[in-house]
């Protein structure tokens, strides 16, 4: 099986790189691709990190909720453009609406209906619980939407193309960057500048004290979890136009967003943002410079970060006092 031929060109490329491709063009490509990649990663990962921060649950079903969001958006978009029922741009609102709907239905259902029975269990047990949810949701989506593939590509083409440094990109991808930025800012603002947000932060900081101070932690849990699901579904809904929506699309998403959250620091919103960029750039750089390393670059980055900052980039370990 072993095939030295396969490696040669890569190494020749590496040498050649410094001579021939240390150009602005390459740097620009890595930058742009990295940010585009980071944008959807952030939207999904920030939901995951929020849920962990508030409920102390590392939600492995997050990827399935990404798929559900994608399916919902794809169905809605398909129906909308299928019978062209109105101005094309409304398609984006429809995708947003799909994500909201998914969150409002599944959020309370899963949190009230399942998760709450497992609170105060060990974190690791909760990971297993969500893993079970993941298995169930994967089959549930299959029962609802079948094994066909769904497309929602109309919104993808809507914004035309832009080109940077001689590379053509799809405008939609930059819209995604915008969406990620807006999501991030809104989240930051609502967490730091609103009462609800402050309460959520308080719960993230110390569940017990907040409860003691009369915070309705239960409601905060339901709210935060639903918000987390909404972000997963949002990520799925706005990724749908770029992909073929079909069984199994959630699996990779889990692992990637999981890596992002761990790197950024479990429960840290700003951490998720930095880590998403971190991972985005790492992947882009790998693909452009050492393509054969793409398979495990993310886990490599993850292990390196954890080796030096086990609690991730942004989470401070609360010191034990006697």
């Amino acid at each position, binding site marked *: *099986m072993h095939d030295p031929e396969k490696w040669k060109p890569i190494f020749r490329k590496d040498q050649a790189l410094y001579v021939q491709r240390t150009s602005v063009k390459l740097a620009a490509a890595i930058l742009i691709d990295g940010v585009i990649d980071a944008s959807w990663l952030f939207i999904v990962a920030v939901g995951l990190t929020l849920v962990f921060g508030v409920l102390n649950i590392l939600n492995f079903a997050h990827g399935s909720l990404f798929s559900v969001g994608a399916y919902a958006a794809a169905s809605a978009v398909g129906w909308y453009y299928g019978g062209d029922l109105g101005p094309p741009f409304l398609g984006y609102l429809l995708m947003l609406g799909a994500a909201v709907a998914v969150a409002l239905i599944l959020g309370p259902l899963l949190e009230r209906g399942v998760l709450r029975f497992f609170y105060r269990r060990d974190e*690791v047990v909760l990971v*297993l*619980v969500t893993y079970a949810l993941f298995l169930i949701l994967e089959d549930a989506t299959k029962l609802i939407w079948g094994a066909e593939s769904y497309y929602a590509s109309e919104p993808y083409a809507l914004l035309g193309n832009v080109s940077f440094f001689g590379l053509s990109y799809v405008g939609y991808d930059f819209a995604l960057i915008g969406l990620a930025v807006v999501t991030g800012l809104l989240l930051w603002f609502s967490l730091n500048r609103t009462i609800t947000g402050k309460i959520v932060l308080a719960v993230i900081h110390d569940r017990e004290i907040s409860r003691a101070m009369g915070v309705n932690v239960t409601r905060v849990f339901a709210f935060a979890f639903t918000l987390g699901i909404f972000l997963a579904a949002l990520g799925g809904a706005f990724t749908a136009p770029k992909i073929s929506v079909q069984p199994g699309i959630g699996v990779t998403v889990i692992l990637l967003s999981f890596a992002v959250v761990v790197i950024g620091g479990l429960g840290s919103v700003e951490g998720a943002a930095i880590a998403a960029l971190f991972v985005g750039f790492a992947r882009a750089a790998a693909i452009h410079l050492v393509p054969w390393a793409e398979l*495990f670059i993310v*886990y490599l980055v993850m292990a390196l970060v954890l080796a030096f900052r*086990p609690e991730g980039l942004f989470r401070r370990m609360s010191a034990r006092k006697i």
Partner: protein
Amino acid sequence: MAGIVRTLAAAVIACAALALAGFVTPNWFVLVATLALSKGLVALGIVALMRGGLVSFGQGTFYCAGAYAAGMAMRSFGIGDAALLVALGAIAGLILGIIIAPLLAGYRGIFFATLTLALSMIVYGILNKTYSLGGSDGLNLHAPSFFGYHPARSQNASYALFLFTSLVTVIAAALCRIHFDSVRGLLSHAARDNEIRVEYLGASVRWINGINFVIAAVLGGVGGALSALSLGHIDPDFAFWTTSGEFVFLAILSGYVSVTAVFVAAILLELVRSYSSQYFPNTWQGALGVFLLLIILFLPGGLGSLALRLRPRGAKPARAPAENPNDRAP
């Protein structure tokens, strides 16, 4: 010492019982049980860690190491004897464990879990690109011999492997039981209960967890080697996160009280999986998920806790600490 004698007696009985069970049950069940016991060993390693308050989501690393050690020994050096191959699997686990333990012994809770997971995924990625080891398709192994005995008929072969696996399993289980009941075993319990006091009594929590980690690694290696023999095939999925997740589930399902429960749980899970995929080919994963949820919901202490209720009285084992390390501080 009475405890040890009892444990050993139980071990002998277990061997006999398993040998008999393997003889009276149909071949398919023998095959399932062999694999279940092998996986159970890996889960037993997690149980050893759990007693110290840690759960590893990356035991696939050692499972994989043991399997590939056995596989390479068989393919490259023509070693065909099961005992030797399993020993190599154990050594592979041991070495890897000793290398990794110092890196991880300082971490707790979800951080420990994620770090082990990251490591296993790196192993997975590297194996996928190691074409000399069959890349993602993996390698096939031929049937092993047992202390010089080469079974001719497939029935004999699977029964022989079952007997051998049972033997290894029972020995490992008995050793673990003895260790868990020992003073050092009790210390692991104490470390999960209150690290501060353990340190103030003059013991090192790092060491306690480190040693438990190495024990888990060795068990992982043994389990991996045995699985490789019973499957006749190894591939990088041995290190994939879902594989590790399955071991964690086994450990949770059995709880950390009873050693026997781990293997009962392993067989139970194999049966549930294979029957659900027989009767609901389209939704077996969902069925498995529901089973998982129900077990975790209604058996918080695991199967072991069921057995525990049979006990009249005496030293109740600790409840699993339901908090992360930070909350544990007074």
